[in-house]
């Protein structure tokens, strides 16, 4: 289980998203991924993340992120 929480200022969400997509493709991770992205280039980032839609659960804020993470851990 991995929760990624990015609030982009100088960090750009699209660059983070590209990294996540790349990692999912190369590593085929066995753990579930929950990603919350907000801030600079959020829309571009979310669009890129759809390429890894099978592996990544996208959430809208920290509370949702924690809830989704806990739910997945309890299910596992």
């Amino acid at each position, binding site marked *: 289980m991995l929760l990624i929480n990015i*609030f*982009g*200022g*100088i960090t750009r969400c699209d660059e983070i998203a590209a990294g996540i997509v790349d990692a999912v493709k190369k590593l085929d991770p066995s753990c579930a991924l929950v990603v919350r992205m*907000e*801030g*600079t280039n*959020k829309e571009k980032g979310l669009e890129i993340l759809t390429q890894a839609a099978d592996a990544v659960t996208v959430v809208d*804020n*920290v*509370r949702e992120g924690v809830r989704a993470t806990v739910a997945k851990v309890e299910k596992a």
Partner: protein
Amino acid sequence: MSILIDQNSKVLVQGITGREGTFHAEQMLAYNTRVVGGVTPGKGGLSVHGVPVFNTVREAVEATGADTTVLFVPPLYTKQGLMEAIAAGVPQVITIAEHVPVHDMMNVMACARGTGCRVIGPNSFGVISPGKAKAGFMAHRIFSEGPVAVMSRSATNCYETVFMLTERGIGQSTCIGIGGDMIPGSTFTDFLPMFEADEQTKVIVLIGEIGGQEEEKAAAFIKAHISKPVVALIAGKNAPKERSMGHAGAIVAPDGTGSAENKETALRAAGVHIAESTMDIVEICARFLA
């Protein structure tokens, strides 16, 4: 009102031809900030998003009357850029890059002190007065205009707080990135009297973290001089000693100096309301504004 920056501020961007400088100059312009010029040595005469580029800060100031400069300059060139801005007489200098060498900042601050120049940063996200202008790299759409002042050593903790304040319908007067390096150019105590005097500000939020003594100094200042409610969050409660946590300046000394506990104790004794989380900051602010 708000403090430090508004729609009348004339902002320079040092390093405007670099990747970050170009991108964030455009973002500042999109927020209606008066970005009057950029500086990159050797690139004078160019134009970036319609903003004229100058070779030196002095030329830029003479041509534009800039009163604030933001440095999108790598850490090892920051000293040079800061010295140039101070020598050119810019009254307010905001510096973005993280990990400026400690000795460089010692020199810079020694020079700045005699001139009255206000240095903000290094490792600052900048300054924003929502609805008016911004000088820095914060994602401006999460901010909204209103009565809460925020100053924070951590950019992310500030964004998260502002995001939830705005969601809750509570706007901000001015938000300042103090920065997380060892030697901050300006700190909480420098801005507290400005927020006390600012008519727009009704509640002051101070987001500190482990390391240094600035929160303790702020506590003493608040006790003596601040009548407005102050809400504080101290990050790093579970940090081990002698290890820097994320920021160079976020480190608890072997004797416990700089611990979250010390800071919270000092702030509580000064009548400051301690928040346990960013969500808690919002709840406490909402109570004061109800």
